[in-house]
């Protein structure tokens, strides 16, 4: 089973539209593949909170699997078959794993925590073929989605508006998607030294661990002291915790430092309004690289195309081909 998560830079970035689009594309080429759809929390509210317009819902084709809160199946009698009840005590709500028998317009509301999603994956795997596809309508604030055991790939939806803060946020979003993976050697050394509770790991130029922290990294004073002590020479800092504003500012001058974030969601914790004007000298790379499938762009204004990560397919479902609009 392959799991793809859909993540948007903002509300209204067109995440559900992208999910619908990919689902349709997969549906047309599915052959015997099983497809299952779910959402982190609720998806498919009728009306957009901000704009007051109708939002796209999920149209399920017959023979598609889904996971949703049972309350959304109240008026769908006869249109689906129940495959599993995913309820208490393992889950906080009563979710149903089912298969559509007819076309259904369904509100998806799946489990909302890493443990629940892991449980779901374990339970539904026997029902989907090995090459079955699990599509999750995700959310950027759910860091667990970035874990390799949860998502095999991502579809990102990025919104560009003329609001400066929003624009900056989306630029950061694209920068995050362009972050390179750390070298194989560094990856190997970190993986070897990593323990369940490890939040930070500082390695010297010769990859010798000099500090392993279990405290929340933004409050880890020892970590800062160690960084100050060795950061004039080349060194590597692995972080499994948010790259907060204060940490970002603290690390900014260390030009010999390579910061290795556990996953991409940690980069997005830097509040964009604060790091403008700071020259961040360390190189940032990722321990778990972002397997990006496609970036969907929704634009109300132009943006710098070079921000798009190389060799990643970018699409604009709302305008003509992305390249065309950007060359304008």
């Amino acid at each position: 089973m392959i799991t793809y998560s859909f993540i948007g830079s903002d509300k209204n970035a067109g995440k559900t539209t992208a999910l619908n689009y990919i689902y349709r594309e997969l549906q047309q080429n599915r052959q015997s593949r099983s497809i299952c759809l779910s959402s982190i929390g609720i998806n498919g509210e009728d009306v957009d909170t901000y704009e007051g317009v109708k939002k796209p819902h999920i149209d399920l084709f017959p023979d598609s699997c889904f996971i949703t809160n049972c309350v959304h199946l109240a008026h769908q009698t006869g249109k689906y078959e129940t495959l599993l009840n995913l309820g208490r005590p393992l889950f906080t709500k009563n979710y149903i794993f089912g298969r559509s028998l007819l076309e259904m317009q369904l509100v998806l509301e799946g489990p909302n925590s890493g443990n629940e999603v892991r449980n779901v994956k374990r339970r539904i795997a026997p029902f989907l073929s090995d090459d079955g596809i699990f599509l999750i309508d995700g959310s950027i604030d759910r860091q667990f989605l970035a874990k390799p055991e949860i998502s095999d790939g991502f579809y990102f939806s990025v919104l560009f508006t003329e609001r400066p803060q929003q624009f900056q946020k989306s630029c950061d979003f694209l920068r995050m998607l362009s972050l390179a993976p750390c070298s194989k050697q560094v990856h190997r050394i970190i993986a070897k030294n990593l323990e369940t509770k490890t939040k930070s790991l500082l390695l010297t130029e010769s990859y010798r661990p000099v500090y392993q922290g279990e405290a929340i990294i933004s409050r880890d004073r020892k970590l800062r002291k160690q960084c100050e002590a060795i950061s004039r020479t080349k060194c590597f800092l692995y972080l499994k915790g948010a790259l907060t504003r204060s940490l970002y500012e603290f690390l900014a001058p260390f030009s010999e430092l390579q910061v290795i974030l556990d996953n991409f969601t940690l980069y997005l914790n830097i509040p964009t309004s604060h790091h403008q004007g700071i020259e961040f000298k360390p190189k940032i790379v990722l321990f778990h690289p972002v397997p990006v499938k496609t970036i969907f762009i929704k634009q109300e204004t132009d943006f710098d195309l070079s921000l798009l990560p190389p060799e990643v397919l970018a699409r604009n479902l709302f305008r003509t081909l992305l390249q065309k609009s950007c060359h304008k």
Partner: protein
Amino acid sequence: MKVEILRKHRNELYDELDYELFLSLFVQNQPLLSSVILRPMDENGAVSHYAELAGLEQKLQPGKLDKILEQSSTLPPLEHLLTLVERGQLEQYHLFELGNFLNNDSILRSLEESCPLDPESSLDRDQLLLVLEEYTEKSFSTIRVNKEAKKTKTALTESDKELEEAVKEFEQQIFECTGLKMTYPWPKELALGKEQVTSINDCDLLTIEKRNDIWLIDYNITLDINRLQSKKNELSAHFDTLMQKQLKQLNGECSPLGHSFRNYYRKRVKRTWFYVLLGVKERKSLCLPEFTSGYGCHLKDSYLYGLKVRKEEKCIPLDLDIEKGATVLYGANMSGKTTVLKTLYFLLTLVQLGLPLPARKAVLHYPKQVALMLKSPGDVRTNSSTYGEELAFFAKQMEEGAYILSDELFLSTDPANGVILSKILIRSMAGADKLFLCTTHYPEILDIENITLFRMEDPDPLLLAKSGSNLQSLRNFMPYKLIPITDREQEKIRTNRAPLETALLFDLPRDIKEAIRKHLAGTTSS
């Protein structure tokens, strides 16, 4: 699954005696028992609880319990839908779990032939299963559709296909007309030149509207697509009506059976807990208490579970035979007197909670009230003294049949007054309908009549000498056994110098040790 004692009933020894470790034995994969909260039962409740448990154990066929527990673990919890069955508000997805419950329960019932659960309500239970089987298909996962619904479903599928074809054609026409590749139902925002705007304006299939610097292109649906959409909506609505009707019929048949099923479910949950209790009892060689009409407590091979886990085979089980009245326990320091009290206390509280006991046999009267007084250091915050706390303990109302356990009786005050108070209290308890067990070092207590005297067996002096001053090895040589005190031994207790001898085993300063030796020698010669 979690098993815990209701917080307000957790005693001050909850952590020390490791109740949680003992309770963890009962944590198993039994979905019906997501949370078991234990609280003390009243006497009648406890007596019937253990009688029922013992009765079930007798009826169970040997070797069946594991299979029964395994099958019980397949039953899904249904708490949330019991009311829905009664009120006739079941939805399709409820039928799956209800059906699975009943199906798996039928298999479980076949394993319970020797001890059937609630035979009176089995007819209703079976009827409920029949109704579900009649209205559902594919192991309760889908609603069984009647002829009309089937016909509508087929028409709906065909209508879907027709609509899909029409939409494809519609998209193709747009492409041919404007060169735009549109995917219905998504609109597009485009930056357009004049010519393109004109071409889209001329296309009847699209609408176009200027928004800031771009154009919003949306669809002007054809009559044909509208007609097909309406047809599909009508069929879909009709199908929904038929399904709702069918669901209503099903609910109408289930609802009268709801009350009886609720009772059955409750009994099934209780029975599952009983199986868990008996399973642990069997696996861990525990015992069920036997209640006596008279007052007394007889334990064979009892132990503190946490202590046994830590010490394994080094944990010496406790045998205890005490009757109503006062029982006084003597013994050297570190001989295990306090552990005796704690073991008894632990077992008595487990009886109150309805659990099997860590013992080979336990015959006793039901512990309606259990009070334990351990040596207290006092508390400067509450301005309470050790002596004051001990007096307050004995000032409490103790009902008939109460188990009163007290460690180092009145050692909290000066020895002269401590002896007097001890004598008064023990004499009072000697004639009471209570079970009083205390430990003491005061030899004067030996003179009291009508009390039972025990002492902890002394360690072998040779082994003791080998232990040196190592506290751990010293403990290893303690027999931890209660033995009755004979008349001859009473004199030995009166002249007991064991604490002095034990002190010599420790690395005390040389002058102190010398003084102890002189004292021992003087005492011995005199």
